[in-house]
């Protein structure tokens, strides 16, 4: 059973659980259903319970730390956080640790990263509000094992989870809302099973052209690199956001609201804006627990007003470097982190520099300029695609990609891709705005439920047909391995 992806089995499982969950609106019933479903889900993912022991151990360790902090054992937070980070790094086998200390029998790590964020969040929040909140063992397990967020998030705050899950009067679920969630599920399936699959084909074929033994004519080589640069960000977006669409909709059908993880990220006109729209729950988590405390600490210690803006730049670097490093255990992800953090810092410096050079008013005017925003959008997209080489490829592949072209050709292909991305994304923004502005009977036409029924049916049919034609399992969700 392929339960760790946007498969029809996972979908049927989720819909079945939602149906049972809605037999009663009582919190106890919904919690019992969610707990049983999450345990069954875990059992389906790992039929051999032995391989789950390290994950269970990590959960127990987190819970024990939480109890200690909740009981007011002051001073234990720093040790708890360090201990949790160490156990996580050890279980994930980060390559900077000596090989011999790792467990050598195979075990299950799916979902561990997301549990890690949730446990840290609970520990930090418990310290900040001593005695105010007690998280019981059932609530702890429900929060961490919730099958809708287990594989790839989104990372929900405990208070938001508890507010929805344990509410005596849970959020309403009428026919209109059900319709919207079903539409969202169909959209998610289409993104993962059709769009992501197509972009993955483009990337795989482009890479195989670069790596084939037969020499490729220069124009074809440039084209292959262009495709590599542009197809992976689109693939990753369709793959990840499609899965998130499905789990958010399934959770909503269980009367549970999950936070949004994406907000049209490729319409962002800068790297800073992009990370407010891409994997939002992760970047918000890191901003809350890394960026803000680090900035506050540095500002307390370094009181020079001239240096204050630069402290923000430094904190951006650290935060987004950590985002990069979190994605994987190897040195490729360290470079991904450096590039991501570096991009954010340079973007911030650019903003500061321009504001200083032009004045606040003129800079504001510039940042509202359509052409400036379009160029920024294209640049951000290409930069993201470029950094992703260290995300999906290992060193030998990266070496092949970079040796495919000369320096001049690289500059040419990057510039060309930037301009093409600028035009394509600007056209998309214009088209989207134009379509949404069409009205009929004094209502927007394309967002009416009738138009959306047509749209969802068409996407559903295409997803079904493509899945049937290919006769392949649903594509893996990239973020499940992190």
């Amino acid at each position: 059973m392929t339960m760790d992806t946007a498969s029809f089995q996972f979908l049927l499982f989720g819909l079945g659980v939602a149906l049972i969950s809605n037999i009663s609106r009582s919190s106890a019933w919904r919690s019992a259903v969610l707990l049983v479903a999450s345990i069954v889900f875990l059992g389906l993912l790992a039929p051999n319970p032995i391989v789950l022991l390290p994950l269970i151990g990590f959960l127990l360790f987190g819970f024990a730390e939480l109890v200690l902090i909740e009981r007011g054992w002051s001073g234990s937070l720093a040790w708890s956080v360090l201990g949790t980070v160490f156990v996580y790094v050890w279980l994930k086998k980060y390559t900077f640790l000596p090989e011999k200390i790792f467990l050598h029998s195979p075990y299950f790590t799916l979902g561990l990263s997301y549990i890690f964020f949730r446990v840290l969040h609970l520990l930090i929040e418990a310290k900040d509000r001593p005695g105010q909140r007690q998280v019981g063992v059932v609530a702890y397990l429900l929060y961490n094992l919730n099958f809708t967020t287990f594989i790839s998030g989104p990372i929900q705050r405990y208070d938001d989870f508890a507010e929805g899950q344990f509410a005596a009067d849970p959020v309403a679920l009428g026919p209109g809302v059900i319709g919207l969630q079903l539409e969202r599920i169909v959209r998610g399936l289409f993104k993962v099973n059709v769009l992501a699959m197509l972009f993955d084909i483009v990337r795989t074929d482009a890479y195989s052209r670069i790596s084939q033994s037969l020499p490729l004519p220069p124009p074809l080589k440039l084209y292959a690199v262009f495709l590599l640069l542009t197809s992976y960000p689109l693939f990753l977006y369709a793959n990840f956001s499609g899965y998130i669409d499905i789990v958010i909709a399934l959770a909503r059908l269980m009367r549970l609201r999950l936070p949004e993880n994406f907000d049209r990220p490729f319409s962002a006109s800068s790297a800073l804006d992009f990370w407010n729209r891409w994997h939002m729950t992760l970047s918000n988590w890191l901003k809350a627990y890394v960026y803000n405390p680090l900035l506050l600490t540095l500002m307390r210690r370094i009181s020079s007003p001239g240096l204050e803006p630069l402290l923000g730049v430094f904190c951006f670097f650290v935060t987004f470097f950590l985002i990069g490093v979190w994605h994987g255990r190897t040195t490729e992800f360290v470079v991904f982190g450096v590039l991501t953090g570096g991009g954010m810092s340079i973007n911030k410096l650019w903003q500061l520099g321009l504001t200083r050079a032009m004045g606040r008013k003129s800079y504001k005017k510039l940042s509202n300029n359509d052409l400036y925003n379009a160029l920024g959008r294209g640049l951000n997209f290409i930069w993201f695609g470029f950094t992703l080489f260290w995300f999906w490829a290992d060193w030998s592949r990266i070496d092949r990609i970079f040796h495919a072209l000369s320096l001049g050709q690289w500059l040419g292909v990057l510039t060309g891709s930037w301009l093409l991305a600028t035009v394509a994304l600007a056209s998309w923004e214009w088209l989207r705005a134009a379509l949404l502005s069409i009205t009929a009977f004094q209502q927007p036409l394309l967002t009416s439920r009738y138009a959306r029924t047509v749209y969802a049916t068409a996407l559903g049919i295409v997803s079904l047909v493509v899945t049937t034609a290919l006769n392949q399992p649903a594509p893996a969700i990239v973020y499940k391995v992190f």
Partner: protein
Amino acid sequence: MDLTLVDEAKRKVRPPKRDWILLPLISLLTVCLLAGSTELLARRLFPEMATEGEDCMIFTDPVSGARGIPNSVCWEKIPEGELTEYQFNRCGHRAGMECGPKPPGTFRIVMIGTSFAIGMRVPREQTFAALLPVELSRRTGLKVQLYNEAIPFKLPDTIAAHFDEALEAKPDMILWALNSSDIHTQSQVAVLPAPASVRNLSLLMRLRSHLKTIFAAKSFAASVTAAFSSTRSATMLSHFLYESRSQYVKSTLMEDDDKVGYLKTEQSEGWQKRLSEFDRDAARIEAQAKAAGVPLVVVLLPNRAQAAMISMGQWPPGIDPYKLDEQMRSIITSHGGTYIDMLTDVRTIPDPQLGYFPVEGHPNGRGHGMFTALLASELTSGAVPALKATSPSQTASKQSE
């Protein structure tokens, strides 16, 4: 922000009652319109004739095995191919010439094999059977003639039982052009073409007969999948998806062991049994050729999956596109035959997977051109002494290719 959230607040208002009828109707209408228009478009882009080349062939004759109907002519147009004529001579061969004694001063090659060798789905003048003698004559200075006795589904045991037919043509050499399907007997029985009597029914009756066959044999889900696969929309979609070599390889490797077991480094018991049967038939064929004093040259023609993997230079662990080639070489040479290796040369051809119909799988005109170049190069390289390229200019021209 996602439109779903924006709209959720609006949707708290109970939708009008008419929507319970209207929305499913809209949905149904969308399905019908989408399916209908796609099928119409697919039929326009990928037209097909009701007749097939197979109408001129008999596959179930217990005496002769698969054979062509003497003096028959058939036409076909498969969705991905062009209009193709199949003309069989009085001996039931698609040879492009009458059967009979070879003209004096001619080096005659008799080719045996199955669908790749006969040139299924491709006009005869584009097949390597037609192009190869011209190329060999150019390279060797000999007057080379190729008499094609290949016929689809004429499997090694039938060839061994009727090898005297090949020897009757008094060949100077016999070329046995194999492909992976020739060691693939079970599934071939399952895909024997539908009899012409079924295909000549009206569209409605054909559809009924088709659905009856499908739903009688499989589970509901598998039946729906099979029913969809038989639409032209499915052909069109698969055609575009399979144009990607990586996707084609991925989909091919999802097939069951019966179809792709020959690509595996650790072959199943079933495949090992098939190979030992092939070994037995090859031994019989080679013994007869040896007794008649006719050199037998065997070649494995790559299929699309092998060509795609070789050109990409990468394949998943546990898979080896060269595996069957090595096994064929080992079997053929162990009985004293000559084996020529085409697969390693495939990597020198840009995009060799374009030489096949993506969905139907047979080589197209480009593929036959590729086979011609590779075969001519191998046959004149010295593997067959009588066909060795003689002058330096010929060798140079060969190398430049």
